């Protein structure tokens, strides 16, 4: 199905879930992301049963929080990662991880199309860049995300083009703050 088309617009499917509680759109998201979340959790040390259960939890959270997905700042895969990471922390009783204060105005009503497109393509671009890394380096990155390294073993120098992603997010945040200031001065 959609899996084999050139590229599925995952963000559009999340919007259909958000705006129309569209179960067909949810099913397509589930087919793609649930096995990936399960794989991630198993590599993070969860047994099969726990990973299955938590993958379903993660997908149910995606349904509930679809309104909080911000396409200008993250791809759907990135957003799913953050939900899966938090579920893993709970499930494996890792140290509680308080979250930064939410930007209280939430996602932009009309996100910048260019930013949103770039963000949605990040996952693929980073995946391709990772595939080009020496195997040892790639393995170290994966192990870090699977929670397999202590924080003193984590090397943030990944050799990946994270700087461009950072710059884009930085601009999106600036734009949000600016819009917020305009709103505040009007009302």
């Amino acid at each position, binding site marked *: 199905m959609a899996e084999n088309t050139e590229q599925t617009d995952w963000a559009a499917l999340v919007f259909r879930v*958000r705006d129309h509680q569209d*179960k067909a759109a*949810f099913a397509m998201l*589930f087919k793609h992301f*649930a*096995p*990936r*979340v*399960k794989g*991630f959790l*198993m*590599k993070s040390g969860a047994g099969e049963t726990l990973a299955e259960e938590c993958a*379903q939890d993660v997908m*149910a959270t995606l*349904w*509930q*929080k679809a*309104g*909080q997905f911000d396409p200008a700042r*993250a*791809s759907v895969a*990135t957003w*799913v*990662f*953050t939900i*899966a*990471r938090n579920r893993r*922390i709970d499930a494996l009783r*890792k*140290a*509680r*991880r*308080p*979250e*930064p*204060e*939410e930007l*209280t*105005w*939430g*996602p932009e009503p009309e996100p910048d199309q260019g930013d949103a497109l770039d963000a949605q393509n*990040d*996952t693929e671009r*980073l*995946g391709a860049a*990772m595939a080009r890394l020496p195997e040892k380096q790639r393995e170290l990155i994966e192990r*870090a*995300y699977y929670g397999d390294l*202590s924080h003193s073993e*984590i090397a*943030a*120098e990944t050799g*990946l083009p*994270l*700087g461009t*992603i*950072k710059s884009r*997010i*930085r601009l999106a945040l*600036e734009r949000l703050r600016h819009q917020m200031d305009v709103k505040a001065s009007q009302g």
Partner: protein
Amino acid sequence: MSIQHHLNNDLLMAYAVGELPEALNLVIATHVSLCDECRARLESYDALGGAVVEHGYAAVADGSLDACLARISGLGQEQPRKAMSRQTKSVFPAPLMDYVGGGLETVKWRPIGMGAKQVILRTADTDASVRLLYIPGGAAMPDHGHNGLELTLVLQGAFRDEGQRFARGDIEVADASVEHTPVAEEGSVCICLAATQGKLKFNSLLPRLAQPFLRI
């Protein structure tokens, strides 16, 4: 008043993957609440997490989708947040407010000498701790060495250390090799959130005796 002193990438990535003690997580979450630069860097490490998740695969059980569909049909959706004024006008950003159980005015300070006060925030950590510090203008932070990492985030006022100035939102990252003495700027009280990993070791005898009682 832009932030001059940021978190390093190692800490941001360790926070992104969820491998830090709770005490450090709290200080990082509080700094990121105030600092767009670090928020953007943090979210770029989340993006890398997205690529890692995308890469893995484990077939789900038969009937998994149906089970999940059944579950969500009973679930509502959270309303997207509406634009509203920022809460960060408060001295404590949201994650810190959660731990304190209120704003600055609700803190139950305990004196630790020389006019300085502190309160330890409860975490489940065994080898890390986090506390709020109240340092009168012109006074030095309680003098201590430490075995591990130390993060000090300014919430109000400013301190100087090693010729540099740290004001609201600035974070000083120090490790065991650094002997340093932050001093609060003259004129106003400096309030900081400080986390340490590893037990503190005090440089003078008296505080060392007092350590068990103060739970530093």
